[in-house]
């Protein structure tokens, strides 16, 4: 920002701002008519026309007559974002696998790839090389040029330059991921904690769309959470927040690598589920899901997941009491839990949490985005600075 607080906004700045707002609206909510754009953005129809014409000329949007008409009069033109006008690469680094996707304007996934990490493949050098190579193959095949990159990492990341301090489950320490990936891909890059990214995805495109206060909690090998507070992501000093999995719920529980004992992660993470289901450590994700799906009777569910349910409830009650969200979205492995268990946990949270009672019952839902939530969120992170420029 060059202007001082006392200076007024110049017309070209206003225009730029309106253009970005319009593009963001089209990017997040999809094709809309000119008329409804005017209503939603509170702008004059002629302003909208000028903006849309400018965008259409540079190939960022396309206008078409809507197929279904509503009401009388000349139909308003439908404005469609063009996916190829701006393409970003989204990277989701997890403990057991890495996924990448090329995502176009409007959120369409144009191409994707993923691979398992075992043994040496999870070392930073191998991951970075593989990400760069397969991104270049995909981009060449699709004939697109990337304008940005967003990366999700299961660890503590410095926001300003994407320096990974610690990703314990990956056994990474002090990896200058932002510099190395950004340099090789030669695009602006943004890197953030996976739970924060997933919360962003749910807030923009998923179950938490339209709610100003929401918490996203996911279980992978680790458990993490992202908080949307008053419409934007809650970040601690330098962006280090989201270790909800290391809140202690069972002081007499198992020791955790973080130095504490009985962390939430040790009671409701993937390993805890494997223990409850009597599966050996390191069972593939799909086998855990298959086993969870095979629990059909209420008696079996209680017998196998009784303790797990109690610890899930305790953690969620704490989270609801601290952050006071409208809803809590459960993601990743939690989505494979029996629906009856989720609703029972939701009811129990409403009963035990006084904040939940005060706001009229915090809803507990599962994510509908499946395992793609972090890819979608990473793409949105990459789009943040890009929308001003296209």
């Amino acid at each position: 920002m060059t202007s001082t607080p006392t200076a007024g906004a110049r017309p070209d700045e206003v225009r730029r701002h309106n253009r970005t707002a319009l593009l963001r609206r089209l990017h997040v909510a999809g094709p809309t008519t000119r008329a409804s754009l005017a209503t939603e953005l509170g702008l004059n129809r002629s302003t909208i026309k000028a903006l849309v014409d400018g965008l259409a000329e540079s190939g960022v949007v396309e206008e078409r007559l809507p197929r279904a008409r509503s009401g009388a009069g000349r139909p308003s033109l439908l404005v469609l974002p063009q996916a190829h006008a701006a393409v970003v690469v989204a990277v989701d680094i997890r403990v057991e696998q890495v996924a990448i996707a090329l995502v176009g304007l409007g959120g369409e996934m144009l191409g994707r790839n993923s691979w398992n990490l075992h043994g040496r493949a999870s070392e930073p050098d191998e991951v970075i090389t593989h990400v760069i190579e397969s991104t270049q193959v995909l981009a060449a095949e699709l004939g697109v040029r990337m304008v940005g990159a967003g990366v999700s990492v299961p660890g503590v990341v410095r926001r300003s330059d994407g320096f990974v301090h610690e990703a314990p489950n990956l056994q990474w320490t002090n990896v200058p991921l932002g510099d190395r990936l950004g340099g090789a891909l030669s695009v602006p890059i943004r890197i953030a904690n996976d739970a924060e990214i997933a919360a962003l995805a749910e807030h923009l495109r998923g179950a938490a769309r339209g709610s100003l206060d929401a918490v996203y909690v996911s279980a992978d090998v680790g458990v993490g959470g992202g908080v949307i507070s008053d419409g934007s992501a809650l970040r601690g000093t330098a962006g280090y927040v989201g270790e909800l999995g290391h809140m202690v719920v069972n002081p007499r529980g198992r020791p955790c690598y973080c130095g504490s004992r009985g962390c939430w992660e040790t009671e409701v993470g993937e390993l805890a589920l494997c223990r409850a289901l009597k599966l050996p450590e390191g069972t593939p994700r799909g086998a855990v899901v298959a086993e969870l799906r095979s629990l059909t009777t209420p008696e079996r569910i209680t017998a196998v997941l009784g303790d797990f349910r109690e610890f899930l409830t305790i953690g969620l009650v704490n989270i609801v009491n601290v952050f006071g969200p409208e809803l809590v979205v459960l993601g990743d492995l939690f989505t494979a839990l029996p629906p009856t268990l989720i609703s029972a946990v939701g009811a129990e949270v409403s009963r035990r949490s006084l904040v939940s009672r005060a706001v009229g019952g915090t809803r507990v839902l599962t994510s509908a985005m499946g395992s793609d939530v972090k890819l979608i969120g990473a793409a949105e992170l990459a789009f943040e600075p890009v929308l001003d420029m296209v």
Partner: protein
Amino acid sequence: MSEPILEITGLNKSFGPVHVLHDVDFTVRAGEVTALVGDNGAGKSTLVKCVAGIHPTDSGQVSFNGRPVTINGPRDAADLGIEVVYQDLALADNLDIVQNMFLGRERGSAWMLDEASMEKAARDTLASLSVRTVKSVRTPVSSLSGGQRQTVAIAKSVLWESKVVLLDEPTAALGVAQTRQVLDLVRRLAEQGLGVVLISHNMADVFEVADRIATLYLGRMVAQVPTRDVTHGQVVELITAGRSGDLGLARPESATV
């Protein structure tokens, strides 16, 4: 831990005088990708066709979900929930995605097909697999790329609630980038809890997606091991020589003692 979804023991198959499969044991677990590898002529495709009921077997037991079953034809296999995807894309070019997914099993009465419900089911299935690369479910298959066609063929097996999906070299006819997309889908299939068998010649692909590797050597199953316990080199030795260190066929000198 529950039983394997599909377990084959002592399977034998001959074509005339040629004994193709010798006492083959093969296990498929729900939620895992099992790669089936072997040299040309090792019997990979024959094994898959026996499981799918296309070839009758000479001897051997098959148990599905812990129950012994007999598979006498493709219909039996389909009824159990075993679906096969071939490399030569068994789709009808002149029909769209919805029509292909429901081909031969259309919904609605004889006079009026329930297009709306079929379209919705097709869209939901693609969404459940997070397939976001296909624009419209009414696109004719002829205008899709090889990778997208293979995606439709695989999604078809999910739509019919299969328990086990056998993929016979699903990427053999595809380019590098499209191969990646199909393998990505294969893994997501397993993450939904299906048992997936992937035949492949490409070691890199196998190591990227498989949880377990089963190696056939001259019609014998020489090893079924978790991917994380073996190296590329060991698997190549198993494919070409049938043994690698302690893995694989017993050495003849130790067998005689």
